[in-house]
């Protein structure tokens, strides 16, 4: 691991050089009065001071619609893999934490090479949060800062960035930053201060328990009235699923060409809040009630997925679902805190 400092001007040159390189560069940019990840065409468009992006970088890690294989007739199949080398620039710590979780989920048990292959070709330049968003609560979830997964981590310390290269990929990128100097003690301290501040500030909604307590909290509250109270207003629109960096459920469909023989099998984002997520043939729906679907999401974040990935909570506190939910009921902290109120923590 090497830690350097580079001035913001010089950093811009680095981004320019990156854009000129032969890989795809995706970075955070403004769209209207919000921010999005998009292909970066000029260094000036990069906005590392952003608060939060509308969609998380999941859209690159697990694209909304991705071909899995092509078929020719009923029984002839061939894998499709469309990934390309890519640099993802400006990933916030909570989103990095989400990607780390997904890496685990897609590599464990059955190894998903469509996902993993793309990840391996991806270089992630993370960056610490400079402007807290209106609903972020990463501090409550322990994801205000992150210490793994990225190839490079940037921290804005005023007129310069502290740059930490964490992998070989990251170190190779340092070659595009000839002007970077080893970070001084003072710079490192400034970075420490940013981390400390974020661990305090990124907390617009305060979870009243340690995240590690959530599985236990949920264990006891399956029939809690809050599920029905909240879900009463739920539109089953899956907005909370769509924007969430840790949601990864998908649907699989075949699309056939006009020869009615060849075509592509692809997967596309799905959402457990959608009415027919658990419907099988004969229209039997295993999760028919809004409340049951609403509960399922928060159980997945707080209990089920943690059970698969060594206890890590699958809500990273980005706050996107809070903003995205039209009915204003999706706030996980709000729900978990209500469970706390009526639960004996013993």
């Amino acid at each position, binding site marked *: 691991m090497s830690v350097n400092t580079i001035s913001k001007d010089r950093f811009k040159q680095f981004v320019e050089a990156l854009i000129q390189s032969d890989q795809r560069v995706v970075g955070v940019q403004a769209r209207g009065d919000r921010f999005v990840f998009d292909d970066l065409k000029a260094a000036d468009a990069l906005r590392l001071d952003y608060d939060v992006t509308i969609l998380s970088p999941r859209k690159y890690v697990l694209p909304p619609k991705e071909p*899995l*294989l092509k*078929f*020719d*007739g*009923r*029984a*002839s*199949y*061939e*894998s*499709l*893999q469309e*990934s390309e080398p890519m640099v993802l620039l400006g990933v916030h710590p909570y989103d990095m934490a989400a990607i780390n979780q997904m890496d685990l*989920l*897609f590599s464990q*048990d*059955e*190894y*998903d*090479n*469509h996902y*993993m*292959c793309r990840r*391996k*070709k991806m270089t992630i330049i993370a960056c610490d949060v400079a402007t807290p968003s209106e609903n972020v609560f990463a501090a409550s979830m322990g994801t205000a800062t992150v210490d793994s997964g990225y190839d490079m981590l940037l921290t804005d310390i005023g007129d310069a960035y502290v740059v930490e290269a964490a992998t070989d990929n990251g170190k190779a990128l340092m070659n595009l930053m000839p002007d970077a100097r080893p970070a001084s003690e003072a710079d490192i301290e400034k970075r420490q201060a940013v981390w400390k501040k974020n661990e305090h500030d990124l907390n617009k909604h305060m979870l009243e328990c340690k995240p590690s307590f959530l599985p236990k909290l949920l*264990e006891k509250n*399956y029939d809690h009235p809050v599920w029905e109270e909240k879900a009463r207003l739920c539109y089953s629109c899956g907005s909370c699923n769509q924007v969430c960096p840790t949601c*990864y*459920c*998908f*649907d*699989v*469909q*075949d699309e*056939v060409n006009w020869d*009615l*023989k*060849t*075509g592509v*099998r692809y*997967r596309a984002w*799905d959402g*457990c809040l959608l009415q027919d*997520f*658990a*419907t*099988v*043939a*004969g229209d*039997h729906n*295993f*999760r028919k009630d809004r409340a*049951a679907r609403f509960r*399922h999401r928060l*159980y*997945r974040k707080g*209990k*089920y997925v943690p*059970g698969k990935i060594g206890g890590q909570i699958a809500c990273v506190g980005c706050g996107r679902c809070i903003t995205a939910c039209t009915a204003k009921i999706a706030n996980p902290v709000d729900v978990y805190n209500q469970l706390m109120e009526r639960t004996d923590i013993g």
Partner: protein
Amino acid sequence: MCECCVQNNKDIYLPAPATITKRRMLNGTELYLHLESDSGKEMEYTPGQFVEVSLGGIGEAPISISSSPTQKGLELVIRNVGTLTRAIHKLQVGDKLGVRGPYGSTYPVEQAKGKDLVFICGGIGLVPQRSFIRYVLDHRSEYGKVTVLIGTKCYDMRLFREEIAMWQERKDMTVMETIDEAHDCWDGNVGVVTTLIPKIESDLPKSLVMVCGPPVMYKFVLMALAEVDVPQDSIYVNLERRMKCGVGKCGHCQINQHYVCQDGPVFRFSDLANVPEAI
């Protein structure tokens, strides 16, 4: 395909071609298929597991393996309920389809050795159970008493009639069949499958009981088993959910914390105690 995929050499979503070598309708809606893999390699599986069956352009569906690994090829039984299953019903001997798997948990083939076994099957639930039953029959000496209860909605829907008749001939197993609705050609038991439970001769609390059937059946069978003191950890249920990937990623088959495709489809009932969505 790119390099790193080639390195890993396995795409978990990639079906392998197989050819239909036998085909017959078991009743008006259920089709029996015998498949052989085009690669010539036998699939290695254990009773209770399932495969994902594919028709390019139409889609994929999870289907239980009905054959036993002690025999050659793969046997499936497919009920015509929707798009893919309807398309499969149109296939003929010699036609090909895609298969990947096997997936999911298995019946307790090893732990069951030496024990009395009871199979309670409702309708198409006989299909996966048959895999284990045939396995047991092929290793008959290793297991205790074998009792098979089969309940079918109506006379015409009964599956594997000749095979059941052969089982009934055997001295080393007990097979009891019932149909829900009386029928002119039927002089056997009439009533739901639970009515057969009192007739079981094995020492039920010491037996392993395997249950598979439509969602509504479980509640009643499990209640009946509780009444006769079968401990929950001696009961195995075989559950079904919507499924897309079959490999624990897509999220559709989740029952609370469990993935049917990985933790199931065969569950020990005691493991489902805190799983309210299961039954």
